[in-house]
C-alpha cells in the first residue's frame, strides 16, 4: 500500500539552523560560527545574563509559585512591563491605555499573531517587507495566506546604506491599507537603520497612504546599549497618534532565546478599540498555542518590576552592546556584501560560517578570531568572483 505521505517532498532546510548543524559537525579546530543571531562573549561562549541567573534562582526557591496556566494573553505584569519598555514609562499612549500588550512565543510568535490578526480579522491582503529582510518575515506571511507578499527597496548595495528614495517610492506606491513590516532598530540582516530624519519621512508616507505599520523590535537595548534610543521608532509612531503593532522580542536583550519571551504591543485610537482587538487576538492564540509559557515571562516581569534588578539589567545590556563593534551599522549583524560563492569559499577553506547573503553575526567575532576572519574575507573577495 502506498503511503499517504509519499508525495511529501523534502523541504529546503532552513539555512541558519542547517549551517549551525554543519558547524557543530565540523572538526576544524579554527572554525568560527558567524551565522546564528545569538550573543557571544569574548570567549565565544553563550552568555546567561547575571540578572537572569539571580532571578531564576529566586524563582526556583520560591515555594509559593505554582505551574498553573497563564491567562491566554499572558502574564499581566509581563505585558504591562513589556509595553513600558517599548514606549517608556509614563508615555501618554500607556496612560490612556491606547496601548496594551499580549504575551507571545518570542518575537516570531508576536509577528505571527499580528500577521494573523491583520489577515483574518482586518482582511488585509498585501504585506510589504524590506529588501532584504529576515527570512522568516516572508515565511510567516505565506503561512498566514497573504495573497500579495511584496518588498520595498531598502538596502543600497552601491552606497552600502539605506535606499531612501527607493523605499519612499515603494511605500508611496503601496496600495492603501497594506501592512508594512518595519525594523524598529538594528535592521536584520543589513545592520543599517534610517536616520531620525528619514524615519519622519517614512512615517509621513505611511500616514498619507494609510498603510498599517507592524514594527519588528527584536533588538531594543541590544543595538546601542540604550533602551530609549533603540525605542525611538515606536515612540515616534505613538507621538504621531498612529495606529500600529510592535512585535517585541526579549530573546536578545534578556538573552532568553530558548524561553520564547515576546510581546505584541497593540496601539489604536482608544482603549476601547484596543480592548476589542486584544479579545480577537486572544481568540487566535486559543487556536494556536492556547496560552503562553510562564517561565521566561516571570523572569522578565520580576526584573522589570524591581528597580534594582532593572538597573542591573540595563547594565548587562550595555555590556553586550559594547562588545559588539559598531561603525555606522548597528547591532548584532553586519552585511558584508559577500556573495553566496564567497560565503561558500569561507566555509570550505577556512571553516568560517556566514550566511549565504553575506550576513555575519558581529558578536560571533572575538579578538582572537577577528584578524583571521578579516584576512579570510579579503581572500574570498579577491580570489572568488561574486
Amino acid at each position, binding site marked *: 500500500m502506498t503511503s499517504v505521505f509519499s508525495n511529501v517532498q523534502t523541504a529546503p532546510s532552513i539555512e541558519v*539552523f542547517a549551517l549551525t548543524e554543519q558547524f557543530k559537525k565540523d572538526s576544524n579546530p579554527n572554525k568560527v560560527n558567524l551565522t546564528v543571531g545569538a550573543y557571544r562573549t569574548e570567549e565565544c561562549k553563550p552568555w546567561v545574563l547575571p540578572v537572569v541567573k539571580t532571578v531564576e534562582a529566586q524563582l526556583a526557591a520560591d515555594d509559593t509559585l505554582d505551574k498553573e496556566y497563564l491567562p491566554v494573553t499572558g502574564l499581566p505584569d509581563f505585558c504591562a512591563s513589556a509595553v513600558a519598555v517599548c514606549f517608556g514609562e509614563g508615555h501618554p499612549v500607556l496612560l490612556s491605555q491606547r496601548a496594551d500588550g499580549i504575551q507571545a*512565543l518570542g518575537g516570531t510568535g508576536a509577528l505571527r499573531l499580528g500577521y494573523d490578526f491583520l489577515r483574518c480579522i482586518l482582511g488585509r491582503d498585501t504585506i510589504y517587507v524590506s529588501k532584504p529582510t529576515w527570512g522568516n518575515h516572508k515565511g510567516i506571511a505565506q503561512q498566514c495566506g497573504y495573497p500579495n507578499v511584496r518588498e520595498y527597496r531598502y538596502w543600497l548595495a552601491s552606497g552600502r546604506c539605506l535606499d531612501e528614495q527607493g523605499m519612499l517610492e515603494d511605500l508611496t506606491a503601496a496600495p492603501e491599507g497594506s501592512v508594512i513590516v518595519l525594523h524598529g532598530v538594528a535592521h536584520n540582516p543589513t545592520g543599517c537603520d534610517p536616520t531620525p530624519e528619514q524615519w519622519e519621512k517614512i512615517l509621513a508616507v505611511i500616514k498619507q497612504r494609510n498603510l498599517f505599520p507592524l514594527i519588528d523590535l527584536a533588538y531594543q537595548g541590544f543595538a546601542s546599549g540604550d533602551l530609549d534610543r533603540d525605542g525611538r521608532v515606536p515612540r515616534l509612531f505613538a507621538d504621531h497618534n498612529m*495606529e500600529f503593532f510592535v512585535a517585541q522580542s526579549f530573546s536578545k536583550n534578556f538573552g532568553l532565546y530558548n524561553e520564547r519571551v515576546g510581546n505584541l504591543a497593540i496601539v489604536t485610537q482608544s482603549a476601547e478599540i484596543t480592548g476589542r482587538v486584544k479579545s*480577537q487576538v486572544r481568540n487566535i492564540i*486559543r487556536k494556536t*498555542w492556547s*496560552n503562553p509559557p510562564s517561565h521566561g515571562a516571570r523572569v522578565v516581569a520580576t526584573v522589570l518590576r524591581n528597580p534594582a534588578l532593572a538597573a542591573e539589567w540595563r547594565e548587562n545590556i550595555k555590556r553586550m552592546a559594547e562588545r559588539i563593534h559598531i561603525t555606522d551599522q548597528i547591532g548584532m549583524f553586519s552585511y558584508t556584501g559577500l556573495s553566496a560563492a564567497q560565503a561558500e569559499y569561507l566555509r570550505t577553506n577556512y571553516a568560517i560560517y556566514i550566511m549565504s547573503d553575506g550576513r555575519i553575526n558581529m558578536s560571533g567575532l572575538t579578538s582572537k578570531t577577528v584578524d583571521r576572519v578579516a584576512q579570510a574575507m579579503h581572500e574570498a573577495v579577491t580570489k572568488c568572483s561574486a
Partner: protein
Amino acid sequence: MNSLVQTNAYSLLKACRIMPLASRTKAHWASVEMGPPDPILGVTEAFKRDKNPKKMNLGVGAYRDDTGKPFVLPSVRKAEEQLMAQKLDKEYAGIVGLPEFTKAAVELALGSANPILSEGRNASAQSISGTGALRIGAAFFAKFYPSKTVWFPKPTWGNHNPVFGHAGMSVKQYRYYDPATCGFDAAGCLDDVSKIPEGDVILLHACAHNPTGVDPRQEQWRELCDVIKRRKLYPFFDMAYQGFASGCVDTDAWAVRHFLSEGLPAALCQSFAKNMGLYGERVGAFSIFCDSQEERDRVLSQMKILIRPMYSNPPVHGARIAAAVLTQPELRQAWLSDVKGMADRIIGMRTQLTELLAKEGSKKNWQHIIDQIGMFCFTGLKPEQVERLIKEFSIYLTKDGRISVAGISSNNVAYLAHAIHQVTK
C-alpha cells in the same frame, strides 16, 4: 473673498481633509467585534464573585490536591532544583525542540521496546503542550494529507474545532457519548465510523475523554480499530492524560499501542500539562509514525517549515524538566508514584461521591461516575438542575453537566452529594 468666508472655507477644507482620514481609520477597526466570551472563564468569574463559604468550582481544568490547591509534583520540583544547579545556557533549541525530551516522550507513549523507535520511523517535534501539538498536526494534515476532513467524537474538547478549523481542515462528528447511559455509544460509534469516507482523518481521545470521561473498553477499542482499518481512516490520537487517567502510564497508552501494533499509521499529540502538572510551562510533543526512516525525514523537514513561522522554536524550561523526570530512574519512579497519587485521589473522589449519593437516599443510577475516568465527569445533570446547583448551592459547573472531579475534595464531597441529590430527587 472676505476674511470670514476665507476662514470658513479654510475650516471646511481642513474638515474635508480630516474627515475622510478619520472615517478611513475608523474603518480599520469598525468591523472588529468583541471576541466571544469564554464559557469556562465565565464559570470561574462567577465563582470568584460568590461570597458563599461553601462554594465549589467544578469548572477548573487543572488538578487540585485534597485541600483544593494547585499541585506542583514533588518529582518535578526535584528535577527543577537539579536543573538550576546545572547552569544550562539559554541558546535556541532547534525548531523541533530538545531531542532528549521528544525521544523520552515518544518512548513513554509507545513503550521503549516499540520497533518504530529503533527503526527511526517517528517524525516527532516538541510542541507547545497539547494545543500546540494539535496545531502542528492540523496544519500538516491540511497541507499534505489527501483528505481535508477530520472526524471528532461527539462531544469533544471545545478547542478541537477552532484549532483544526483555523488550520484549514473541515470538521465532522461521529457518535460517541450516549446521554441515556452516560456511557459509550458503542453501536452508534461503530455505525458512524463504518460510514466515514475512506481515507478521512479520525480524531481519537487516547484515554480520559474530555469532556465526558467516557472511554471505550479494550474490546470496544479493538472493534473500533478493525473498522478504522477497514475504512482506511487515519487515526489522529490526542493523549492529554497518560498516567493521569488510570494511574498507570502503560494502561492509558493501550489504545495507541494497539492501533500501532495492528499496523495502522497514526499521529499522536501528547501533553504533559496534567500528568506532570507542567500546565503553564507548555510541554508537549507531536508525532507522525511513518512507514520508513526516509519518509520520516521528509515529513520532519516539512513539520519544521510549519513550525518556524509560528514561533520559531519551543520554550525549553518545561521540556528540560520533563526530560530529566523521564530519563533519570529515581526521578521517573518518583514521578510514576506522583501521577498515581493524583489519579488515585480522583478515583477516590468518584467512589466517595457515588457512595454519598446513595447515602443521601438518591434512587438514581450514578454508576457512570465511577465508570468514567480522568479529570472530568459528565454527570447527566440537565441545564435546569445545573442552574439550581449554581444558584442554590454555589456549586459552579458548565451547562452541559460536566464537573471537574479535581475540584472535589474530602471536605466538600458530602456537600456536593447532598446538593446533587437535592436537585435531582
